[in-house]
């Protein structure tokens, strides 16, 4: 098999099957590095650099991918890598990470050529698993469910990923970084009037997604000591799809946050939308805050959202 240059030169030539066994061992919570490597060459690998034998993980989802990057174990492949750069932005993927194409049909020949030890996916990708499992064992992890606990689940996901990457301590560090980001943001906003925040992304000139219960953004907003201005019903992914007129039902004292990228034609059309211009949180002439943060993200997105939002709110005149 021709290996792409993504593999470190020192990587031992293992069969795919043995790598698969490795991944499974990691899932079972066993000491993955030691056992896998020992089985390999019979040398004293316990002292070996853990990194060299760290399992190579491919992610079929951006939230899991960004979490892996933040844990210091970037995935060997993600779907739609260019899109990741536009929508997730930070944390950036290394150049070596391969692009698998669509998240609905991740390129299987490419994935097989990369021979990852483990593939991580989210539940709606279930129907793909019989195919992907022929390449490597698949670990399915979920952040967004309808029970309103996205943060707890994002932390658990980070923990499972860190264990799978053979570096269980990394998760605690990431969770601590997230808590620190929340605390720093809260400090930054201390002494300011705690106005509620309304987070929306525009899907076309007339429609928006607004984020409320079940969204990680809501958690971040509350940990910053603020309130989410959207109290409407949301789906398991944490948003309501509404016409822009629906924004008028939000708390009128809110600061509006639009998630980037906003399509150019939509931005232009908004300027001439009389209802938009008369919305309480637009009318005042206060600049709308635009944040490039991906929706349906994991802990790194929560950090990014918290950092960017608190910085922008702190700039504004009290």
């Amino acid at each position, binding site marked *: 098999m021709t290996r792409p240059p993504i593999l470190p030169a020192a990587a031992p030539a293992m069969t795919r099957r043995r790598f698969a066994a490795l991944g499974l061992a990691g899932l079972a919570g066993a000491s993955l590095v030691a056992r896998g490597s020992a089985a390999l060459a019979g040398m004293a690998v316990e002292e070996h650099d853990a990194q060299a034998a760290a399992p190579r993980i491919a992610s079929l989802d951006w939230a899991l991918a960004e979490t892996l990057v933040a844990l210091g174990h970037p995935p060997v492949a993600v779907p739609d890598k260019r899109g990741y750069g536009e929508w997730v932005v930070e944390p950036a993927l290394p150049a070596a990470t391969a692009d*698998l194409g669509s998240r609905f*049909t991740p390129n299987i020949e490419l994935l097989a050529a990369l021979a990852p030890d483990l593939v991580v996916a989210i539940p*709606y990708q279930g129907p793909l698993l*019989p*195919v992907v499992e022929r390449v490597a064992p698949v670990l399915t992890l979920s952040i967004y469910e309808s029970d309103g606990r996205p943060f707890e689940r994002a932390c658990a996901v980070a923990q499972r990923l860190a264990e799978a990457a053979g570096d269980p301590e990394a998760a605690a560090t990431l969770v601590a970084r997230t808590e620190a980001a929340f605390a720093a943001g809260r400090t930054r906003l201390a002494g300011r009037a705690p106005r509620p925040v309304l987070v929306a992304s525009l899907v*076309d000139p007339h429609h928006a997604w607004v984020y409320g219960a079940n969204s990680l953004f809501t958690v971040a907003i509350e940990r910053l000591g603020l309130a989410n201005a959207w109290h409407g019903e*949301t*789906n398991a992914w944490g948003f309501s799809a509404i016409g822009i007129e629906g924004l*008028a039902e939000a708390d009128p004292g809110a600061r509006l946050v639009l998630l980037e990228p906003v399509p150019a*034609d939509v931005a232009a059309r908004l300027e001439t939308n009389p209802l938009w211009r008369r919305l309480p949180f637009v009318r005042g002439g206060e600049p709308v805050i635009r944040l490039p943060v991906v929706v349906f993200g994991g802990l790194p997105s929560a950090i990014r959202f918290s950092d960017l939002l608190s910085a922008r709110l702190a700039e504004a005149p009290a």
Partner: protein
Amino acid sequence: MTALRLGATPVRGGLAVVAGLLVLAGLAGLGLASAGLSTHLPAELWLQAALAPDDADVRQLLVHYSLLPRLATALLAGAALGLSGAVLQRVLANPLASPTTLGIEAGARLALAVATLWWPGLLGLGREAVALAGGGAAVAVVLLLSLRAGLKPVAVLLAGLLVALYAGSAAAALTLLNEQWLVSLFIWGGGSLAQQDWSVAGALGPRLALAGAAAALLARPLALLGLGEDTARGLGVPVAAVRLAALALAVALATSVVSLVGVVAFVGLVAPALAGLLGARGVGARLLAAPAVGAVLLAVTDLVVQRLSGAYGELLPTGAVTAVFGAPVLLAFLLRRGLPAEPAGDGRGLAAAAAGRPWWTVAVLAVALAGLAALALLAGPDAHGWRISLGEGLADLLPWRWPRTLAAASAGAMLAAAGVVLQRLTGNPMAGPEMVGVGAGAAGGMIFAFLVLADAGRLATLAAASAGALLALVVVVALAGRGRLPPDRMLLVGVALGALADAVVAVLMAGGDPKAMALFAWSTGSTYRVDAPAALATALVAGLLLAAAPVGGRWLAILPLGGDPARALGVPLVAARLLLLVLSALLTAAATLVVGPLSFVGLMGPHLARGLGLVRPGAELAGAVVIGAAVMVAADWLGRTVVFPFEIPAGLAATLIGGPWLVLLLARRRR
């Protein structure tokens, strides 16, 4: 002239009924509207909100800039579509013509999607111009395709729905390559009526007024046309000019609605039909009543949708909802009344010059298929670019490639065989397995499995798809078996079922749930999930069914002549039709599981085979099977290599390749 005067009396009485019922419906709508209003605003503020809203009062702003313009837009769009449908039905003398069934909306939508993604500069010329071009092109293709059949209603309808399906799947392929913008394309495709100002209503109003004036001018010549082309010409009507003007008017109205609001399906079909049911029979009465019915229909639907929308925290696009209700109305019309009885087809469309040595042609085709299959197995891009893989490299890739290639070939072969059987069964060159309703049934089953079962495994999906296909098959066969439907009417039933499945998907998609997106991607017919056992099973089923096909060879030779000659030649008509229908449905169901509900391969295969001079049933079947397999193998290969590492599902790729080819083929062979 006497005929006209005679026709006038019942119209007047009918108009009173129409007016009465419309007033009733209008009152109901008014009740709903005011109920909606009063949840937002106390009644004493309504007038102020409507005329000069207080900027500080969000409730008044909502009424002024959202609720009222939305109501006005619904009324105007409904009226425009009703008028467009009424004009189309009159000028084509076809009670089932409408912007939806002629592919006008789908054509406009595709043109706008293409412009949005690739040539945003074109939109600077005006979205309406782009939509008009798309809708006009769709109608032109439809008329071109059905010209040979003398623009008979059923032929026009089949061509129209085909063009609609084609444009719809092309738009789908575009969205699959632009996942992040899928949602906006679907909201718009679903025709959401959400408004935040009066601009849309303000644009639609004058257009409707102009169109109304034009329609008033055209009413008399159109009525005279109804007396027959020669009579009309004798009375001094410039027949061609009137027809062209009426068509242009209808297309412009419908495409304006698409560009300003989105696709609001089936209102243009249902409104004139309802107006007719209510008693508006003359041209003038119909042209007046249809817009009124359309306006009330869409406004009431939208008011109900607004109520439901809020309840689920999800977006329900009104246009997709009208399609969910409209498709069954089309079905009901097809089953009960509406179309004049027509001979089942005389088989002239199937005529072609016979080749001297048909089996040599088949052999050459088989060699070409083998070559394509080899290409699909050996060549493809990897992370470093294109390469031909041999030896060890190939050994790594083959386990991924051969099941997909084999499954694609089997599916293509089965679809083409089903196409041969159906075209010969109906004597209609536009018949294809995409239109038996079985594909839609299988897709419906898959949708059900993905949505309802939390973890739809391979087996569960397969079972659900088969169950859906079987259900559709039972329905179609039951209808056919009772002899209620001529074969080509039955094809329309299948297409209507397909439109229904599309509408359900559109409703699901607009909510933005990623699971629905994934479902959409898979339902378009990817061989992605085919593994070795599935591929072998598909090939086995294909082999068994194809072995059964030649048994009906004599029937296939005789049936295209039509029912009476066939009976005279001793064909047990009902049994033969039923058996062939079951065979084609089984072929289609097995193929749909692999390549999705739409591909056009079943339509294309037989045409290409006949074009090569394979006219005897056995040779045509063999040639079409090989061609179908080759086209699908090529589609699967191109689909996974051209946009690498992304993929276009094989079914969609085949549609994209096959659609224009088919149009060219049919247009060129027109006499």
